[in-house]
């Protein structure tokens, strides 16, 4: 057993971080959030594809990178840290199943129906070409990928300014070819891990931001981080982060149902609560649109509702006892 990152994994992660700092740093994020950039950054998507984000787990003989879920989790953590917009998880999962997904020419989003619901929230529908459906009703675990053109959908005024959302009815996306050889349940577990990894990245970024602010912002004659109340908020943020990290990385390694559910539940919580604590540490400045912290909170709110969400996760983890 050696749970540590290998040197290769560390290099891979650092590479993605460097790429994103250059290509989707603070300015990029603000453009996406403020609506001053294009509604869909196709060149960025292409660059992410070229960096192997989608083809990462395809065999090299199929043009992929031949790596595994742990490496994917590390890259998605970086994407979450930078708040990269777009249906990253669905496109990554569709690589090898839907032509063009691996290369970034076909943008794939997911319609995830919560248990017993006939309506799904779909992210980035206008930019997407195909809709991934991971159905499990008959226990057979079919995977479909209908085209998005002509899908009737009601737009929301999305709380996350960089993630357009639409309500889609199950009947509207009932068609589409069954993708042979794809295991819906495995893909769902992987989706949960990769979504959790994004939340983990965001939770890590908000710890850093809070600590940075606390070290430099002075109030009452000293940095606010010198006050125990602020210090202890930051410490609890780190505890949430590191606990979620262990859960997410383990789930990426084992891929078991209970590790994956644990990862999603704890990473969702870490992302939301760390963003809120980060806002609290920032005081009034955190409440402004210009501060990035609200973007982390809003993305975390969006991702925590990507199925499986809290209730489903807790019930599953209870049933597993």
């Amino acid at each position: 057993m050696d749970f540590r990152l290998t040197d290769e994994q560390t290099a891979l992660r650092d590479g993605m971080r460097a790429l994103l700092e250059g290509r989707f740093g603070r300015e990029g994020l603000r453009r996406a959030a403020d609506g001053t950039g294009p509604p869909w950054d196709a060149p960025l998507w292409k660059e992410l594809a070229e960096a192997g984000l989608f083809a990462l787990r395809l065999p090299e003989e199929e043009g992929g990178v031949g790596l595994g879920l742990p490496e994917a989790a590390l890259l998605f953590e970086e994407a979450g840290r930078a708040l990269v917009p777009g249906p990253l998880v669905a496109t990554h999962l569709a690589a090898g199943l839907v032509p063009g997904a691996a290369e970034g020419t076909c943008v794939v989003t997911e319609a995830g129906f919560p248990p017993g619901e006939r309506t799904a929230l779909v992210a980035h529908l206008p930019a997407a070409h195909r809709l991934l459906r991971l159905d499990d009703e008959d226990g057979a675990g079919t995977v479909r990928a209908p085209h998005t053109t002509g899908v009737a959908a009601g737009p929301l005024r999305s709380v996350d300014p960089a993630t357009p959302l639409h309500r889609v009815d199950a009947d509207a996306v009932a068609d589409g070819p069954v993708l042979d050889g794809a295991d819906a349940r495995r893909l769902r577990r992987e989706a949960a891990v990769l979504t959790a990894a994004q939340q983990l990245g965001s939770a890590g970024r908000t710890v850093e931001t809070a600590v940075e602010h606390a070290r430099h912002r002075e109030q009452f004659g000293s940095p606010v981080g010198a006050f125990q109340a602020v210090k202890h908020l930051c410490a609890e943020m780190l505890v949430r982060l590191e606990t979620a990290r262990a859960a997410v990385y383990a789930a990426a390694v084992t891929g078991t149902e209970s590790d994956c559910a644990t990862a999603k539940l704890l990473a969702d919580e870490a992302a939301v609560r760390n963003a809120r604590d980060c806002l609290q540490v920032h005081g009034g400045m955190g409440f402004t649109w210009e501060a990035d912290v609200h973007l982390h909170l809003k993305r975390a709110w969006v991702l925590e509702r990507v199925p499986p969400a809290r209730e489903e996760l807790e019930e599953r983890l209870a049933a597993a006892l």
Partner: protein
Amino acid sequence: MDLSGTAEEDAFRHGLRAWLSETLPKLPPRPDPLDWPGRRAYDLGWQRALYDAGYAGLHWPADAGGGGATPTQHLIFLEETERAGAPYVGANFVGLLHAGPTIAAEGTAEQRRRWLPPVLRGEEVWCQGFSEPEAGSDLAALRTRAVRDGDAYVVTGTKIWTSHAEVADWCELLVRTDPDAPRHRGISWLAMPMDAPGVTVRPLRTLAGSTEFAEVFLDEVRVPVANRVGAENDGWRVTMVTLSFERGTAFVGEVVACRRVLGELARTARANGTWDDAVLRRRLGRLNAEFTALWRLTQWNVGQAEGDLAAGGTGVPGVGGSVFKLRYSHARQELFDTAADVLGPGALDTGEEWTADRLSSLSYTIAAGTSQIQRNIVAERVLGLPKGR
């Protein structure tokens, strides 16, 4: 301990109810939230209606033109107006609740004559220039400086979190008049005309996407010395009088509104099936207890204020204020977090009112003294724990 109204209180309540049911249907339609001049006109119109009916400045002292009402009567007024869906105090907030009472308490006869009647009659709007970007929770660290030049102060600095700055006539302004004095000692309180040269207002966008607040930039603004209320360098004390004027009634309307929202949440949950989720249902039950208790705590604090007034005190709620704010801020956030679970996917739609409320509720543990500051106040001033560390 008595929670039933006296004959006088009941008569006041019934008279107010009658007036509200007659008056509210005749009001003009509410203006768009982005229409600042429209909002100003609407809010001032409502204030004028209150004035004409004898309800203006109910809690102000009678010798300042107010109603001289008891804290209990003020509580009844706030409760009934919120229940009836009357307009909010809106643009009149600072004039009625901060600047006005300050001038009433600390102003000269001349200053009271000049500034108080237009507030009560709904003619002039005030805004507040206390907070600064670099000061934050540490209000006394304010840097805006005022240099005496003849019969005027020349004021330069930046204020933040100013509501209604776009449409205000006056700004109650805290400035540093003695940079060498200890932090709390060199501050003065000025009434600044918002149309003075050198005043620039820039809307400040919050995380909710709205521009409720503004930054106010002051570049060598000349404010007459005659506009200073209280002695030079005594502005901190003058301000504390203002800030503590509320006598336990600060959140009456909000608590009434939260209880209404809670009822609507239950109705929505019953309609959309989320009521069957026992975890959510019991959270709603828990919130019912929370807001029932917050309502009782409001009544308790008002009772304490009333007792303090009767004993010749100031009616300042003391312990009650910070205790209430701590509990309420968190309860309000929990209320709208729970609303998100009732809404389901709608929680991600800012077109839903509760989603917008959820966003704005995030400021409650920060604005007007963070929860951390409030806990310090409770621990040090109420419980007598030592300062420092």
